[in-house]
Protein backbone atom coordinates (compact mmCIF):
# COMPACT_ATOMS: atom_id res chain seq x y z
CA UNK A 1 0.00 0.00 0.00
CA UNK A 2 1.27 3.47 -0.80
CA UNK A 3 1.38 6.08 1.88
CA UNK A 4 -0.79 9.08 1.07
CA UNK A 5 0.70 11.07 3.94
CA UNK A 6 4.10 10.71 5.58
CA UNK A 7 5.10 12.91 8.45
CA UNK A 8 8.72 12.79 9.58
CA UNK A 9 10.37 14.42 12.59
CA UNK A 10 7.78 17.12 12.79
CA UNK A 11 8.18 19.73 15.53
CA UNK A 12 6.02 22.65 16.46
CA UNK A 13 6.37 25.23 19.19
CA UNK A 14 4.14 28.28 19.47
CA UNK A 15 6.00 31.45 20.45
CA UNK A 16 3.71 34.12 21.81
CA UNK A 17 5.60 37.35 21.19
CA UNK A 18 2.75 39.47 22.43
CA UNK A 19 2.92 37.74 25.79
CA UNK A 20 6.58 38.16 26.58
CA UNK A 21 7.81 35.53 24.16
CA UNK A 22 6.29 32.58 26.03
CA UNK A 23 7.10 29.31 24.27
CA UNK A 24 4.50 26.58 24.13
CA UNK A 25 6.00 23.35 22.78
CA UNK A 26 3.30 21.25 21.12
CA UNK A 27 5.14 18.24 19.76
CA UNK A 28 8.63 17.30 18.67
CA UNK A 29 9.76 14.56 16.33
CA UNK A 30 6.21 13.54 15.46
CA UNK A 31 5.84 10.72 12.92
CA UNK A 32 2.75 9.61 11.08
CA UNK A 33 1.89 7.72 7.94
CA UNK A 34 -1.51 7.19 6.42
CA UNK A 35 -2.32 4.86 3.55
CA UNK A 36 -5.18 4.98 1.07
CA UNK A 37 -8.40 3.54 2.48
CA UNK A 38 -7.28 4.09 6.06
CA UNK A 39 -8.89 6.28 8.69
CA UNK A 40 -6.29 7.19 11.30
CA UNK A 41 -7.59 8.77 14.46
CA UNK A 42 -5.35 11.10 16.39
CA UNK A 43 -5.72 10.45 20.08
CA UNK A 44 -4.30 12.02 23.17
CA UNK A 45 -5.09 14.31 26.05
CA UNK A 46 -6.24 17.86 25.54
CA UNK A 47 -3.25 19.99 24.52
CA UNK A 48 -1.37 17.06 23.01
CA UNK A 49 -1.45 18.81 19.63
CA UNK A 50 -4.08 16.81 17.75
CA UNK A 51 -5.62 19.84 16.08
CA UNK A 52 -2.21 21.44 15.52
CA UNK A 53 -0.96 18.34 13.73
CA UNK A 54 -4.10 18.23 11.62
CA UNK A 55 -3.68 21.90 10.77
CA UNK A 56 -0.02 21.29 9.90
CA UNK A 57 -1.13 18.58 7.47
CA UNK A 58 -3.44 21.11 5.83
CA UNK A 59 -0.75 23.78 5.64
CA UNK A 60 -2.67 26.01 7.97
CA UNK A 61 0.00 25.76 10.65
CA UNK A 62 3.71 26.12 9.93
CA UNK A 63 5.96 23.55 11.67
CA UNK A 64 9.44 24.48 12.89
CA UNK A 65 11.14 21.35 11.59
CA UNK A 66 10.38 18.11 9.78
CA UNK A 67 8.48 17.26 6.66
CA UNK A 68 4.90 16.47 5.66
CA UNK A 69 4.98 14.59 2.40
CA UNK A 70 1.66 14.28 0.64
CA UNK A 71 1.02 12.22 -2.47
CA UNK A 72 -0.25 14.64 -5.06
CA UNK A 73 -0.63 14.29 -8.78
CA UNK A 74 1.56 11.20 -8.95
CA UNK A 75 4.37 12.86 -7.02
CA UNK A 76 5.10 14.08 -3.55
CA UNK A 77 4.68 17.56 -2.11
CA UNK A 78 6.17 18.61 1.21
CA UNK A 79 3.43 20.75 2.68
CA UNK A 80 5.86 22.10 5.28
CA UNK A 81 7.98 23.85 2.68
CA UNK A 82 5.81 24.15 -0.46
CA UNK A 83 5.05 27.56 -1.96
CA UNK A 84 1.58 28.93 -1.14
CA UNK A 85 0.24 28.40 -4.63
CA UNK A 86 1.34 24.77 -4.60
CA UNK A 87 -0.34 24.22 -1.23
CA UNK A 88 -3.50 25.75 -2.66
CA UNK A 89 -3.27 23.45 -5.65
CA UNK A 90 -2.85 20.42 -3.36
CA UNK A 91 -5.87 21.59 -1.37
CA UNK A 92 -7.90 22.02 -4.53
CA UNK A 93 -7.29 18.55 -5.88
CA UNK A 94 -5.93 16.32 -3.14
CA UNK A 95 -6.52 17.60 0.33
CA UNK A 96 -9.98 18.08 1.86
CA UNK A 97 -10.58 19.50 5.29
CA UNK A 98 -13.55 19.64 7.61
CA UNK A 99 -12.86 22.21 10.28
CA UNK A 100 -14.70 22.65 13.53
CA UNK A 101 -16.29 25.88 12.43
CA UNK A 102 -17.66 27.04 9.13
CA UNK A 103 -16.19 30.29 7.94
CA UNK A 104 -19.28 31.62 6.26
CA UNK A 105 -18.91 34.05 3.39
CA UNK A 106 -21.59 36.71 3.31
CA UNK A 107 -24.23 36.32 0.59
CA UNK A 108 -23.09 32.89 -0.66
CA UNK A 109 -25.94 30.36 -0.34
CA UNK A 110 -25.37 27.01 1.40
CA UNK A 111 -25.74 25.06 -1.84
CA UNK A 112 -22.93 27.03 -3.46
CA UNK A 113 -20.75 26.79 -0.35
CA UNK A 114 -20.95 23.00 -0.71
CA UNK A 115 -20.64 23.00 -4.50
CA UNK A 116 -17.59 25.28 -4.50
CA UNK A 117 -14.87 22.60 -4.11
CA UNK A 118 -16.41 20.76 -7.06
CA UNK A 119 -16.61 23.93 -9.13
CA UNK A 120 -12.94 24.51 -8.34
CA UNK A 121 -12.21 21.11 -9.89
CA UNK A 122 -13.94 22.22 -13.06
CA UNK A 123 -17.24 20.37 -12.54
CA UNK A 124 -20.11 22.09 -14.36
CA UNK A 125 -22.37 24.26 -12.21
CA UNK A 126 -25.46 22.08 -12.53
CA UNK A 127 -23.67 18.81 -11.76
CA UNK A 128 -21.87 20.39 -8.81
CA UNK A 129 -25.13 21.70 -7.38
CA UNK A 130 -26.82 18.36 -7.82
CA UNK A 131 -24.07 16.60 -5.89
CA UNK A 132 -24.17 19.35 -3.24
CA UNK A 133 -27.92 18.91 -2.92
CA UNK A 134 -27.55 15.15 -2.39
CA UNK A 135 -25.08 15.69 0.43
CA UNK A 136 -27.16 18.38 2.09
CA UNK A 137 -30.21 16.12 1.88
CA UNK A 138 -28.32 13.22 3.46
CA UNK A 139 -27.21 15.48 6.26
CA UNK A 140 -30.81 16.57 6.77
CA UNK A 141 -30.45 20.22 5.85
CA UNK A 142 -34.00 21.22 4.82
CA UNK A 143 -34.20 22.25 1.19
CA UNK A 144 -35.64 25.65 2.08
CA UNK A 145 -32.26 26.54 3.62
CA UNK A 146 -30.17 25.59 0.60
CA UNK A 147 -30.50 28.96 -1.02
CA UNK A 148 -29.76 30.96 2.10
CA UNK A 149 -26.34 32.02 3.30
CA UNK A 150 -25.30 29.78 6.23
CA UNK A 151 -24.26 32.74 8.40
CA UNK A 152 -27.70 32.69 10.03
CA UNK A 153 -27.89 28.90 10.51
CA UNK A 154 -27.67 27.17 13.89
CA UNK A 155 -24.33 25.73 15.00
CA UNK A 156 -25.34 22.19 14.09
CA UNK A 157 -26.63 23.22 10.68
CA UNK A 158 -23.45 25.14 9.93
CA UNK A 159 -21.39 22.12 10.96
CA UNK A 160 -23.37 19.87 8.63
CA UNK A 161 -22.95 22.33 5.74
CA UNK A 162 -19.24 22.25 6.54
CA UNK A 163 -19.18 18.44 6.45
CA UNK A 164 -21.06 18.36 3.15
CA UNK A 165 -18.51 20.81 1.74
CA UNK A 166 -15.64 18.66 2.97
CA UNK A 167 -16.99 15.48 1.38
CA UNK A 168 -18.30 17.10 -1.82
CA UNK A 169 -15.21 16.90 -3.98
CA UNK A 170 -14.15 13.38 -2.98
CA UNK A 171 -10.54 14.39 -2.34
CA UNK A 172 -8.03 11.52 -2.06
CA UNK A 173 -7.10 12.78 1.43
CA UNK A 174 -9.57 14.10 3.94
CA UNK A 175 -8.77 15.73 7.28
CA UNK A 176 -11.52 15.82 9.89
CA UNK A 177 -11.29 18.07 12.95
CA UNK A 178 -14.04 16.99 15.36
CA UNK A 179 -16.67 16.91 12.62
CA UNK A 180 -19.38 15.45 14.88
CA UNK A 181 -18.88 17.80 17.83
CA UNK A 182 -22.28 19.45 17.69
CA UNK A 183 -24.35 16.80 15.93
CA UNK A 184 -27.20 14.63 17.19
CA UNK A 185 -27.15 10.81 16.97
CA UNK A 186 -28.88 10.58 13.60
CA UNK A 187 -26.51 13.01 11.93
CA UNK A 188 -23.52 11.37 13.60
CA UNK A 189 -24.62 8.14 11.95
CA UNK A 190 -24.68 9.86 8.56
CA UNK A 191 -21.13 11.13 9.08
CA UNK A 192 -20.01 7.62 10.08
CA UNK A 193 -21.55 6.34 6.84
CA UNK A 194 -19.85 9.04 4.79
CA UNK A 195 -16.48 8.19 6.33
CA UNK A 196 -17.08 4.51 5.66
CA UNK A 197 -17.89 5.17 2.02
CA UNK A 198 -14.80 7.36 1.66
CA UNK A 199 -12.59 4.60 3.08
CA UNK A 200 -14.15 2.10 0.72
CA UNK A 201 -13.25 4.29 -2.28
CA UNK A 202 -9.64 4.54 -1.14
CA UNK A 203 -9.63 7.91 0.58
CA UNK A 204 -6.97 8.39 3.23
CA UNK A 205 -8.55 9.99 6.28
CA UNK A 206 -7.04 11.56 9.37
CA UNK A 207 -9.38 12.66 12.10
CA UNK A 208 -9.79 13.98 15.59
CA UNK A 209 -12.97 12.72 17.23
CA UNK A 210 -13.77 13.40 20.85
CA UNK A 211 -16.82 11.15 20.60
CA UNK A 212 -15.91 7.54 21.55
CA UNK A 213 -18.76 6.03 19.54
CA UNK A 214 -17.69 7.73 16.32
CA UNK A 215 -14.02 7.03 16.95
CA UNK A 216 -14.64 3.34 17.38
CA UNK A 217 -16.91 3.17 14.38
CA UNK A 218 -14.57 4.80 11.88
CA UNK A 219 -10.98 4.24 13.00
CA UNK A 220 -8.76 1.78 11.16
CA UNK A 221 -5.93 2.74 13.47
CA UNK A 222 -5.41 4.98 16.44
CA UNK A 223 -2.35 7.19 16.56
CA UNK A 224 -1.59 8.38 20.05
CA UNK A 225 0.03 11.72 20.72
CA UNK A 226 1.70 12.27 24.09
CA UNK A 227 0.81 15.48 25.81
Amino acid at each position, binding site marked *: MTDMIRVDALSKTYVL*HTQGGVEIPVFAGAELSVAAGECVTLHGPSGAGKSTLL*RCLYGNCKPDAGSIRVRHDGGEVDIATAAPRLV*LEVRRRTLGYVSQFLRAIPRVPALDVVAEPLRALGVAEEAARTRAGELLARLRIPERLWHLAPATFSGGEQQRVNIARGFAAGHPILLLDEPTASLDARNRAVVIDLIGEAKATGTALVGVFHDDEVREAVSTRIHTLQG
Partner: protein
Amino acid sequence: MTPLLKVTGLTRMYGNRVGCRDVSFELWPGEVMGIVGESGSGKTTLLSCLSARLEPTAGTVEYDTRAEGLQDIYAMGEPRRRLLMRTDWGIVHQNPRDGLRMGVSAGANVGERLMAVGARHYGEIRAQADEWLRKVEIDGDRIDDLPLTFSGGMLQRLQIARNLVTHPRLVFMDEPTGGLDVSVQARLLDLLRRLVTDLGLAAIVVTHDLAVARLLAHRLMVMRRGEVVETGLTDQVLDDPHHPYTQLLVSSVLQP
Protein backbone atom coordinates in the same frame (compact mmCIF):
# COMPACT_ATOMS: atom_id res chain seq x y z
CA MET B 1 5.62 28.63 -16.88
CA THR B 2 6.63 32.18 -15.96
CA PRO B 3 5.26 34.36 -13.18
CA LEU B 4 3.02 37.25 -14.20
CA LEU B 5 4.96 39.68 -12.06
CA LYS B 6 8.49 39.31 -10.80
CA VAL B 7 9.66 41.83 -8.25
CA THR B 8 13.29 41.95 -7.20
CA GLY B 9 14.85 44.08 -4.48
CA LEU B 10 12.29 46.83 -4.86
CA THR B 11 13.18 49.89 -2.80
CA ARG B 12 11.67 53.33 -2.70
CA MET B 13 13.21 56.05 -0.56
CA TYR B 14 11.76 59.46 0.21
CA GLY B 15 15.03 61.23 0.89
CA ASN B 16 16.33 59.50 3.98
CA ARG B 17 12.99 57.99 4.85
CA VAL B 18 12.09 54.50 3.74
CA GLY B 19 8.94 54.07 1.65
CA CYS B 20 9.54 50.38 1.11
CA ARG B 21 12.80 48.44 1.18
CA ASP B 22 14.11 45.36 -0.58
CA VAL B 23 10.81 43.76 -1.50
CA SER B 24 10.99 40.65 -3.69
CA PHE B 25 8.25 38.26 -4.72
CA GLU B 26 6.63 36.56 -7.68
CA LEU B 27 2.96 36.68 -8.52
CA TRP B 28 1.50 33.93 -10.68
CA PRO B 29 -1.48 34.05 -13.04
CA GLY B 30 -4.75 33.84 -11.15
CA GLU B 31 -3.07 34.46 -7.82
CA VAL B 32 -4.42 37.06 -5.41
CA MET B 33 -1.90 38.51 -3.00
CA GLY B 34 -2.84 40.67 -0.05
CA ILE B 35 -0.50 43.27 1.37
CA VAL B 36 -1.38 43.98 4.99
CA GLY B 37 0.09 46.24 7.63
CA GLU B 38 -0.82 49.34 9.57
CA SER B 39 -1.01 52.85 8.12
CA GLY B 40 2.41 54.11 7.13
CA SER B 41 3.89 50.63 6.75
CA GLY B 42 4.64 51.26 3.09
CA LYS B 43 1.77 49.31 1.53
CA THR B 44 0.59 52.08 -0.73
CA THR B 45 4.12 53.11 -1.72
CA LEU B 46 4.80 49.53 -2.71
CA LEU B 47 1.55 49.31 -4.68
CA SER B 48 2.37 52.52 -6.54
CA CYS B 49 5.83 51.19 -7.44
CA LEU B 50 4.35 47.89 -8.61
CA SER B 51 1.68 49.54 -10.74
CA ALA B 52 4.07 51.79 -12.69
CA ARG B 53 2.99 54.96 -10.96
CA LEU B 54 6.05 55.62 -8.80
CA GLU B 55 9.56 54.95 -10.00
CA PRO B 56 11.50 52.87 -7.47
CA THR B 57 14.87 54.00 -6.10
CA ALA B 58 16.28 50.53 -6.69
CA GLY B 59 15.15 47.11 -7.83
CA THR B 60 13.03 45.92 -10.72
CA VAL B 61 9.41 45.12 -11.49
CA GLU B 62 9.08 42.72 -14.39
CA TYR B 63 5.78 41.90 -16.04
CA ASP B 64 5.05 38.98 -18.34
CA THR B 65 3.98 40.89 -21.46
CA ARG B 66 1.90 38.98 -23.99
CA ALA B 67 4.32 39.61 -26.81
CA GLU B 68 7.78 39.53 -25.28
CA GLY B 69 7.60 37.76 -21.93
CA LEU B 70 9.08 39.28 -18.78
CA GLN B 71 9.90 42.97 -19.26
CA ASP B 72 11.05 45.55 -16.73
CA ILE B 73 8.13 47.97 -16.64
CA TYR B 74 10.33 50.95 -15.83
CA ALA B 75 12.75 50.15 -18.64
CA MET B 76 10.11 49.90 -21.37
CA GLY B 77 8.97 53.05 -23.17
CA GLU B 78 6.14 55.17 -21.89
CA PRO B 79 3.75 54.29 -24.76
CA ARG B 80 4.07 50.57 -24.03
CA ARG B 81 3.70 51.14 -20.32
CA ARG B 82 0.55 53.17 -20.87
CA LEU B 83 -0.91 50.58 -23.18
CA LEU B 84 -0.19 47.94 -20.56
CA MET B 85 -1.88 49.99 -17.88
CA ARG B 86 -5.11 50.30 -19.78
CA THR B 87 -5.33 46.87 -21.33
CA ASP B 88 -3.59 44.23 -19.23
CA TRP B 89 -3.82 46.04 -15.91
CA GLY B 90 -6.51 47.56 -13.78
CA ILE B 91 -6.11 49.94 -10.88
CA VAL B 92 -8.88 50.24 -8.32
CA HIS B 93 -8.35 53.29 -6.14
CA GLN B 94 -9.55 53.55 -2.58
CA ASN B 95 -11.48 56.68 -3.44
CA PRO B 96 -13.49 55.87 -6.57
CA ARG B 97 -13.44 59.56 -7.49
CA ASP B 98 -9.72 59.15 -8.24
CA GLY B 99 -10.42 56.38 -10.71
CA LEU B 100 -13.57 57.67 -12.38
CA ARG B 101 -14.45 60.59 -14.63
CA MET B 102 -17.11 62.22 -12.51
CA GLY B 103 -18.34 64.53 -15.27
CA VAL B 104 -19.33 61.86 -17.79
CA SER B 105 -21.99 59.13 -17.63
CA ALA B 106 -21.53 55.69 -16.10
CA GLY B 107 -21.62 54.15 -19.59
CA ALA B 108 -18.86 56.44 -20.85
CA ASN B 109 -16.78 55.66 -17.78
CA VAL B 110 -16.93 51.97 -18.55
CA GLY B 111 -16.60 52.48 -22.30
CA GLU B 112 -13.57 54.76 -22.08
CA ARG B 113 -11.01 51.99 -21.85
CA LEU B 114 -12.57 50.31 -24.87
CA MET B 115 -12.38 53.54 -26.85
CA ALA B 116 -8.83 54.06 -25.62
CA VAL B 117 -7.78 50.82 -27.25
CA GLY B 118 -9.54 51.63 -30.48
CA ALA B 119 -13.20 50.58 -30.22
CA ARG B 120 -15.12 52.80 -32.65
CA HIS B 121 -18.58 51.26 -32.77
CA TYR B 122 -20.93 53.12 -30.47
CA GLY B 123 -23.50 50.34 -30.30
CA GLU B 124 -20.94 47.72 -29.30
CA ILE B 125 -19.25 49.97 -26.75
CA ARG B 126 -22.61 50.69 -25.18
CA ALA B 127 -23.62 47.02 -25.15
CA GLN B 128 -20.40 46.11 -23.36
CA ALA B 129 -20.80 48.94 -20.88
CA ASP B 130 -24.32 47.73 -20.19
CA GLU B 131 -23.16 44.16 -19.69
CA TRP B 132 -20.46 45.24 -17.26
CA LEU B 133 -22.77 47.46 -15.26
CA ARG B 134 -24.99 44.42 -14.77
CA LYS B 135 -22.03 42.28 -13.76
CA VAL B 136 -21.26 44.72 -10.97
CA GLU B 137 -24.94 44.86 -10.03
CA ILE B 138 -25.72 48.35 -11.27
CA ASP B 139 -29.12 48.71 -12.97
CA GLY B 140 -28.88 49.06 -16.73
CA ASP B 141 -31.12 52.12 -16.61
CA ARG B 142 -28.39 54.02 -14.75
CA ILE B 143 -26.09 53.80 -17.77
CA ASP B 144 -26.61 57.44 -18.76
CA ASP B 145 -26.51 58.83 -15.23
CA LEU B 146 -23.55 60.79 -13.96
CA PRO B 147 -21.52 59.09 -11.20
CA LEU B 148 -22.22 62.17 -9.08
CA THR B 149 -25.65 60.68 -8.41
CA PHE B 150 -24.25 57.29 -7.26
CA SER B 151 -23.74 56.05 -3.70
CA GLY B 152 -20.26 55.18 -2.43
CA GLY B 153 -20.74 51.46 -2.98
CA MET B 154 -22.07 51.98 -6.50
CA LEU B 155 -19.14 54.26 -7.33
CA GLN B 156 -16.70 51.59 -6.22
CA ARG B 157 -18.51 48.97 -8.30
CA LEU B 158 -18.53 51.33 -11.28
CA GLN B 159 -14.78 51.78 -10.89
CA ILE B 160 -14.36 48.02 -10.90
CA ALA B 161 -16.43 47.66 -14.07
CA ARG B 162 -14.39 50.41 -15.72
CA ASN B 163 -11.22 48.47 -14.93
CA LEU B 164 -12.39 45.01 -15.92
CA VAL B 165 -14.02 45.86 -19.25
CA THR B 166 -10.76 45.30 -21.16
CA HIS B 167 -10.25 41.90 -19.49
CA PRO B 168 -7.05 42.74 -17.64
CA ARG B 169 -4.82 39.98 -16.30
CA LEU B 170 -3.63 41.87 -13.24
CA VAL B 171 -5.56 44.25 -11.02
CA PHE B 172 -4.11 46.47 -8.31
CA MET B 173 -6.49 47.41 -5.53
CA ASP B 174 -5.81 49.94 -2.81
CA GLU B 175 -8.17 49.43 0.13
CA PRO B 176 -11.06 48.55 -2.19
CA THR B 177 -13.58 48.48 0.64
CA GLY B 178 -12.17 51.37 2.63
CA GLY B 179 -14.64 54.11 3.44
CA LEU B 180 -17.70 51.98 2.79
CA ASP B 181 -20.44 50.92 5.20
CA VAL B 182 -20.01 47.41 6.54
CA SER B 183 -23.14 46.12 4.77
CA VAL B 184 -21.91 47.60 1.48
CA GLN B 185 -18.44 46.17 2.11
CA ALA B 186 -19.76 42.62 2.33
CA ARG B 187 -21.55 42.93 -0.99
CA LEU B 188 -18.52 44.42 -2.69
CA LEU B 189 -16.22 41.75 -1.27
CA ASP B 190 -18.47 38.99 -2.47
CA LEU B 191 -18.62 40.58 -5.90
CA LEU B 192 -14.84 41.01 -6.07
CA ARG B 193 -14.24 37.47 -4.91
CA ARG B 194 -16.57 36.11 -7.58
CA LEU B 195 -15.18 38.26 -10.39
CA VAL B 196 -11.60 37.41 -9.49
CA THR B 197 -12.42 33.69 -9.48
CA ASP B 198 -14.60 33.70 -12.60
CA LEU B 199 -12.15 35.75 -14.65
CA GLY B 200 -9.02 34.04 -13.28
CA LEU B 201 -7.60 37.47 -12.43
CA ALA B 202 -4.35 37.96 -10.63
CA ALA B 203 -4.60 40.74 -8.09
CA ILE B 204 -2.60 42.61 -5.53
CA VAL B 205 -4.83 43.95 -2.80
CA VAL B 206 -3.59 46.44 -0.25
CA THR B 207 -5.69 46.46 2.88
CA HIS B 208 -5.40 47.03 6.59
CA ASP B 209 -8.53 44.95 7.13
CA LEU B 210 -7.53 41.36 7.86
CA ALA B 211 -11.06 40.08 7.18
CA VAL B 212 -10.87 41.52 3.67
CA ALA B 213 -7.48 39.90 3.22
CA ARG B 214 -8.77 36.52 4.39
CA LEU B 215 -11.70 36.63 2.02
CA LEU B 216 -9.89 37.84 -1.10
CA ALA B 217 -6.24 36.86 -0.89
CA HIS B 218 -4.63 33.51 -1.53
CA ARG B 219 -1.46 34.63 0.18
CA LEU B 220 -0.31 37.49 2.30
CA MET B 221 2.62 39.78 2.66
CA VAL B 222 2.84 41.54 6.02
CA MET B 223 4.61 44.89 5.97
CA ARG B 224 6.05 46.95 8.73
CA ARG B 225 8.13 50.12 8.42
CA GLY B 226 8.55 49.56 4.72
CA GLU B 227 9.80 46.02 5.00
CA VAL B 228 8.17 42.65 4.49
CA VAL B 229 8.23 40.82 7.82
CA GLU B 230 6.20 37.73 6.99
CA THR B 231 4.73 36.02 3.95
CA GLY B 232 2.71 32.89 3.36
CA LEU B 233 -0.61 31.31 2.69
CA THR B 234 -3.36 33.63 3.91
CA ASP B 235 -4.94 31.30 6.46
CA GLN B 236 -1.55 30.15 7.71
CA VAL B 237 -0.32 33.71 8.30
CA LEU B 238 -3.53 34.71 10.03
CA ASP B 239 -4.07 31.50 12.05
CA ASP B 240 -0.43 30.77 12.89
CA PRO B 241 1.41 34.09 12.72
CA HIS B 242 5.12 33.87 13.45
CA HIS B 243 6.55 37.38 13.42
CA PRO B 244 5.88 39.43 16.56
CA TYR B 245 4.34 42.20 14.48
CA THR B 246 1.97 39.82 12.68
CA GLN B 247 0.94 38.35 16.01
CA LEU B 248 0.24 41.84 17.30
CA LEU B 249 -1.73 42.68 14.15
CA VAL B 250 -3.82 39.52 14.34
CA SER B 251 -4.45 39.80 18.07
CA SER B 252 -5.47 43.44 17.72
CA VAL B 253 -8.50 42.70 15.57
CA LEU B 254 -11.75 43.30 17.38
CA GLN B 255 -14.21 40.45 17.14
CA PRO B 256 -17.79 41.62 16.72
